[in-house]
């Protein structure tokens, strides 16, 4: 295996080509914030939190979808990137109805964690307060679109790992919503296998199991990659 050298935040790192910037940084304990990234499923580069500066490229590129190349000089910690991460976080919170104190995921939520990490003390943009539905028609799970951030991790897990493709995204712009089948109640789905992977993939309190109270919710996004890796071993 060939080895290449890249520089991240002034530090020289040896790595293999064909890895993404995100993989290399995480392997070397360099923190990169992400929301839509989930190990085990395809990356889509949608949340724009993992943007990095690369010398010689005038655009910011998403670390999760950009492969490393020899002698790449990368910065993940500039003031510009930090500022943009904060704006992105504020926009997440302003877009739908994220009220941590009454959310089932309070304390266990990746979005909440993100808010702490970027040091968000208040939101400078007006809340959009969209009218979002809550669907509790499934026997075991609930989807609450008020808490959804459109990371589409559930969609990808359902399609790529479970192979059910119950979830997809409808409409466009701020009208996008995660849907089950024909935008029909989850409980009436003909494709859902009730496997529960989407529950673990969801970073917020948008998809959760019924009969759970605040503080007890336990999400294990790591099991998705575990499953994927185990399947590879079987082959």
């Amino acid at each position, binding site marked *: 295996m060939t080895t290449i050298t890249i520089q991240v935040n002034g530090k020289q790192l040896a790595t293999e080509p064909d890895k993404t910037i995100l993989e290399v940084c995480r392997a070397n304990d360099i923190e990169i914030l992400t929301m839509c990234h989930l190990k085990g499923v395809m990356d*889509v*580069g*949608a*949340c*724009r939190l993992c*943007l990095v500066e690369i010398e010689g490229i005038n*655009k*910011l*590129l*998403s670390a999760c*979808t*950009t*492969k490393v190349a020899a002698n790449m000089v990368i910065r993940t910690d500039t003031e*510009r990137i930090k*500022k*943009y991460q904060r*704006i*992105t976080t504020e*926009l*997440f919170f*302003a*877009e739908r109805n994220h009220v941590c104190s009454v959310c089932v995921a309070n304390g266990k939520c990746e979005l909440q964690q993100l808010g702490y990490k970027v040091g968000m003390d208040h939101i*400078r*943009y*007006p809340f*959009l307060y969209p009218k979002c539905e809550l669907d509790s028609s499934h026997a075991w799970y609930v989807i609450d679109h008020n808490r959804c951030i*459109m990371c589409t991790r559930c969609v990808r897990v359902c399609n790529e790992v479970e192979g059910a493709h119950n979830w997809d*995204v409808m*409409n*466009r*712009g*701020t*009208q*996008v919503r995660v849907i089950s089948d024909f935008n029909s109640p989850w409980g009436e789905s003909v494709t859902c296998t009730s496997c529960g992977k989407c529950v673990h993939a969801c970073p917020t309190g948008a998809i959760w199991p019924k009969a759970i109270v605040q503080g007890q919710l336990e999400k294990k996004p790591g099991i998705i990659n575990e499953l994927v890796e185990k399947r590879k071993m079987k082959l």
Partner: protein
Amino acid sequence: MNRQDLQLLTDQAKEKKNSCKHTICVCCGASCISSGSEEVLKKLEEEIKSRGLENEVAVIPTGCMGPCNQGPLVKYMPENTIYQKVDCDNIARVVQSQLIDKKPIEDLLLFADSREKPFLNAEEDPFFKKQLKVALLDCGDINPETIEDYFTRDGYKALSDVLFRMSPEDVIAEIKHSRIRGRGGAGYPTGMKWETVYKYVSDQKYVICNGDEGDPGAFMDRSVLEGNPHRVLEGMAIAGYAVGASKGYAYIRGEYPLAIKRFELAIKQARKNGLIGNNILGTNFSFDVDVRIGAGAFVCGEETALIASIEGKRGTPKPRPPFPAESGLWGHPTLINNVETFAGIVPILNKGGEWYSEIGTPKSAGTKVFALAGKINYSGLIEVPMGTTLREIVFDIGGGIQGGGTFKAAQTGGPSGGCIPAEHLDVKMDYEALVNLGSIMGSGGLIVMDQQSDMVDVARYFMEFCMDESCGKCVPCRVGTKMMHDLLHKICAGNGTRIDLDRLEELAVYVKETSLCGLGGSAPNPLLSTLRHFRQEYESRITTPGVKKELQPQS
């Protein structure tokens, strides 16, 4: 069909054309059709027949002639006399005086109602005189629905020459030499794009023609597809040969049924004549083209979104790299060029890259088609050498501002572009100059605004467009455009504050730099450019709450 057969067909078509003393062209572009040109065509054919002139006078429908708001247009060849606003009632009079009495009717000549002395030969009119037609060549002179008419203009000769005399490397070298840049808006050098696709090794490659002209106010691609579809098809086939692709797709907006119809007809005719399909002209080269109809999504003009749409999916963009040249349609190397770019390929190969590279400015070679619209006297379709000034386009070609108003700004590049104010009327229009002014060339829409136009409202209008057209995949574009729109709306209504304006500017730069694709990346452009050139209009709208009236900033 082999090479000799093509030559024979070309000779026959030319001979037939020359046997007619006169040709009357009736503009059947979408604009003239909606003004009733199809009835005029029918009536004219009857009129010629009733006078027994059908052997010396050929009547043909053609594509767009240019001055769209004067339609329906009828052109007499070889005199090149254009009559405007022809209808079923005055057509007999036109035939009588032009063909029999040989005395043109002055009051029906092109621009007769606005020029002191209209021109008998339309080419002498300033509207045409300053133009140079390359991509639009033959558009408005030939019948787009027959392949024979295209043969009279040496149709498919370039393809034949390429197949028999040039290697793919030669073709790419010639295109590079011409210095033509992508006409879709970004202006990436076409030759380099072709070379990149050529270099990737794959058993399957694709050529895509981007005809998803989504900018409001732009209709260049539509006119080219409607007026000379074979030219685009030939350009695609040549590109296929150069990059090593055997399959092409033309992605055309669903809003353009006539363009779709004519392009599909052209494919059928070319297929029948063996000019596309298997073993073209008896060579080893095979190339076929299918049409894909867009379903109304502006973002599909972005190449990765367009590819997703051809694959039958939601047209959401993907992060680049990888670029389509490496991994495009179904993961194969894919060349995507705009309609206008493909239309320019045939003239370049016929006349040589050298010829093309000498037109225009040092960094932007060739010509550019613009769709003139807005508060301008002569709106329509024009093609000018790069480097023509905005003043020449608006005042010499476009005939100045409607109703004697004053020029305030010209908007180029649609929702991804910006506004050019009056003080920059003498800017030489090319890719770099427009970027320096905070706008972009874009696909060529050019909307003229007069003193009544409210620039803050213009920015709001384009932001609303981008907000509606955002695919919703990435956060900056999905939420950022909505926030900016709301802030602009607030300012327009007179409720905005200094803080709102600051937020707006911060968001604009943020969305521009962080969005996933070109739509979000350019959505703030109309806002940023109006802020740059017309800041006063924003300042005068905002209020400062909590500050005593006498301390309010003077505006």
